[in-house]
């Protein structure tokens, strides 16, 4: 299978939107494109399994290498392993559901009809950045796609957002660009310390992984890369863009932010920082663990204080993304697998959560918990999905959140030191706090008597909303009751990363 299609089809979809007239055409084109993307990602999954089961044990499959800038040793090099395939699947899900959720454009925008072209274009273009990022095997290509995904977010939030949207959009853009500036320095540092056979440098991830970068260099540049990507992935204390950005964004953009953008950070930490600089990852792992524990606890406690549903979900994202970084910091195969599972699970779950909140907001025009109540009676579908996703968030067995978190905890427990045990216990303890705020939100907004008489006139989800919510729910449940397929998909990728790390340990 030609991997370029994964990039080309989203790009064509986005370009095709530009030539449409009116909302109807735009959304049909976007929908068709998004469906093709989803099908394509399943084809990719199938192809990947075919290759693996036929005994192909290369670290990366479907590679394609094109010399882009020969004098600077920059290539357009793409390929996938299990981790990338999982992330591409996630992206395809989010793109399709994001398009479905914004079927009528963000409700409060006055000129919705007129600007639909730009809105859908930016949404799909953001998807292009994510797809490209997940398939890149060249640091330049990777960086290109990382930055590609920043500005559409700024415009989406700034133009179609709500609340203090300009502030949030600017904060998000500057913090993410700051992150990518750090990443850039780290990448340049890596580049100039690689030595290929003919005395030149390389950006190629596969080649760098084979080389041994001097430990001093790793120790210098690991923080740049990790913090840089960490800003994308809500690393404490650089998470402050998350709550503002998420809550100001229109529904689809929130879904993209939480479902895809934050995953760019986690994936980058894994693929670039940990994979290419294993020595430094070993040495700094305790710092990562401490920071992610703080993020997990801080995020959970901060959520308790929120009254706005979107803020609740945004802060809980900080907490949940803390688990991703915790898994990466633990540096065992199980924990890394868990981290990737958590990325996928959190992506689906948060997207669904935001979709539900968006649907509720579109109807009731409020997101304040105090003003909501008894929605189960008037919109049973939305409310049911809301409850499912809430239970997923607090880690109910049978749903994806549980699987991912348990895998991370098991992985952390493989370490014998007291430090690891204590941090794991602390992280586990956050689940109790999660239960408090999740159950409170469900109790206040969904259960109980109807908060206002006007609510009784509200209608339940439309077909597009039902389809979006249904797809994401299926995803959550599929991971929850049959986690082995995701585990088998991600396992070899995590293995390859671990091999680099254990080599270091043996060498010592």
């Amino acid at each position, binding site marked *: 299978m030609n991997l370029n299609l994964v990039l080309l089809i989203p790009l064509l979809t986005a370009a095709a939107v530009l030539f449409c007239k009116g909302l109807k055409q735009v959304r049909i084109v976007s929908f068709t494109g998004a469906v093709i993307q989803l099908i394509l990602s399943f084809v990719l999954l199938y192809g990947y399994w075919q290759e693996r089961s036929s005994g192909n044990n290369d670290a990366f499959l479907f590679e394609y290498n094109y010399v882009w*800038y020969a*004098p600077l040793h920059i290539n357009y090099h793409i390929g996938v392993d299990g981790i990338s395939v999982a992330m591409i699947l996630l992206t395809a899900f989010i793109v399709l559901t994001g398009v479905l959720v914004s079927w009528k454009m963000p409700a409060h925008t006055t000129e919705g009809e007129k600007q639909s072209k730009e809105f859908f274009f930016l949404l799909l273009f953001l998807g292009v950045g994510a797809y490209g990022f997940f398939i890149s095997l060249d640091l330049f290509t990777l960086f290109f796609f990382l*930055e590609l995904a920043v500005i559409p977010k700024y415009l989406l939030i700034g133009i179609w957002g709500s609340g203090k949207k300009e502030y949030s959009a600017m904060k998000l853009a500057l913090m993410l660009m700051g992150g990518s500036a*750090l990443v850039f320095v780290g990448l340049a*540092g890596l580049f100039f310390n690689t030595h290929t056979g003919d005395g030149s440098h390389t950006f190629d991830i596969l080649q760098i992984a084979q080389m041994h970068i001097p430990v001093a260099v790793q120790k210098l540049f690991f923080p740049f890369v990790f913090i840089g990507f960490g800003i994308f992935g809500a690393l404490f204390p650089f998470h402050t863009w998350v709550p503002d950005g998420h809550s100001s964004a229109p529904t689809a953009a929130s879904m993209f932010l939480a479902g895809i953008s934050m995953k760019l950070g986690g994936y980058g930490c894994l693929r670039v920082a940990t994979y290419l600089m294993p020595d430094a990852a070993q040495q700094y792992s305790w710092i990562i663990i401490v920071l992610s524990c703080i993020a997990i606890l801080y995020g959970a406690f901060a959520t308790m204080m929120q009254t706005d549903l979107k803020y609740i979900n945004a802060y809980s994202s900080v907490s949940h993304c803390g688990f991703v970084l915790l898994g990466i910091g633990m540096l065992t195969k199980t924990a890394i697998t868990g981290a990737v599972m958590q990325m996928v699970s959190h992506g689906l779950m948060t997207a669904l959560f935001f979709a539900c909140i968006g649907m509720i907001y579109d109807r009731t025009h409020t997101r304040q918990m105090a003003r909501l109540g008894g929605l189960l009676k008037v919109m049973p579908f939305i409310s049911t999905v809301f409850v499912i996703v809430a239970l997923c968030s607090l880690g109910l067995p049978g749903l994806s959140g549980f699987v991912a978190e348990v895998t991370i905890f098991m992985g952390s427990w493989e370490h014998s030191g007291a430090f690891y045990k204590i941090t794991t216990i602390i992280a586990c303890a956050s689940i109790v706090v999660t239960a408090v705020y999740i159950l409170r939100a469900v109790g206040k907004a969904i259960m109980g008597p109807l908060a206002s008489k006007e609510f009784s006139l509200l209608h339940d989800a439309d077909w597009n909303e039902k389809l979006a919510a249904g797809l994401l729910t299926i995803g959550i449940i599929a991971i929850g009751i049959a986690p082995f397929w995701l585990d088998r998909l991600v396992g070899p990728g995590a293995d390859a990363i671990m091999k680099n790390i254990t080599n270091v340990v043996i060498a010592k």
Partner: protein
Amino acid sequence: MWNEYLQLMKAELMVTIILFILLFLKLGKKERETVPLLHFINILLLLNFISGFLYNAEGTLFGDMFHTSKLLSLEKNILNLGTLIISLQSFQWLKTHKHIPEFYMLLLATLLGMFFMLSSNNLLMFYLGLELSTIPLAALANFDLDKKISSEAAMKLIISSAFSSGLLLFGISMLYGTTGTLNYHELSQQLSGSPLQILSFVMFVAGFGFKFSAIPFHLWTADVYEGSPVAVTSYLSVVSKGAILFVFVSVLYQAFQNIAGVWYNLLFIISVITMTIGNLFALRQQNMKRFLAFSSISQVGFILIGITGQSPEGSASVIYFVLIYVFSNLGAFGVVSLVSAVTARENIDDYKSFYKNNRALSWILAISLFSLAGIPPTAGFFGKFFLLLAGAGTSHISGEQVNYLLITVAALNMVISLYYYLRIIRAMFMDGNDHPIDKVKASLLPNISFIICIGGVLLIGFAGGIYEYIYSLVK
């Protein structure tokens, strides 16, 4: 013999021919229809640009005073392209202007000066070209005769450029005193780094610094940019600056290669100051032209990073960046020029809700600004990336840490610069305004220029061949 002259001086001769055609047009008849005249001139400029690709030869003339090569032809053609785009964009402004042939004669005279400057192989020749290129610029800055602010701008320009030329000439004379030659090749062999030579080199850099407005030699920039007609401002900030930078790179890399250790540190400090202060000033600007002036100052800081690279990558990335800069900066200036010509509004606040009535123009301005800020997929991203990579790549002169320090500062500066570029985006797309600018109708020629600019900005980055071609010429 004649053939040789014709071929080697082709670029210069083409510009001279156009100059004379315009002169005869002016002499021939008192009053002319402006629109056909402008179309005609633009066609001439287009022909000039196309001819820049054909029959490019290499060689020297006039006893090694003048030389040309494929690289120089390319650089000249980049300037040709810039001039053509500016000419297309100033259509709206010139349409009602009485002195069209004069405008173009002055413009082409400066262009001719730049060509001679680029092709010079001798500091004296270089100085001649420089003067030919700067003096008509002052007249151009004052081209809106009834505007007081324009005369002020012209006065500032002529005084500051005369001063900087003086400095430059002083430096050149001291160089001549210590080495006994003005030829680049001989200079490069004679330079030993004695204190007097270094002093003269400092004068030299100061003179150049004035011309491409590096900090601390930037004080004239914002006022001149604000006062001049937009077409002249864009010419100053793109074509004139580009030419000076081309010459600066080639002089440093050829004539002053021996004392690279000296100028590495000098440029390092200047580039950091230029980026940072340029950015900080740009944060507070209210006038669009002043804003673009400071943004172009900080861009020079980035270009200087590439020059510190002292490698083929360094000079290739500078030329590549200037090429991209032509497209992105002229895209931005084009919109400002059009809006200024039609509505006479130039403040950032005037651009609030610009998107409401002018959707296409807003996107053009936005994409150009993204390119200036270095956001993919625009070409500016590639340009900046390569500049920084080239700047970080010098390890043979100073310790490796220093290089990373430079690009770290630069990368953080990119974040600052993003803030003020996004400020414009925010004003256009997000802020409300009671009196937004009405629909601005662009004629054919400005539209063509926008297509060229946006096409360049969006496509150049993906064509790796362009950089490779420049690199092969530089090597």
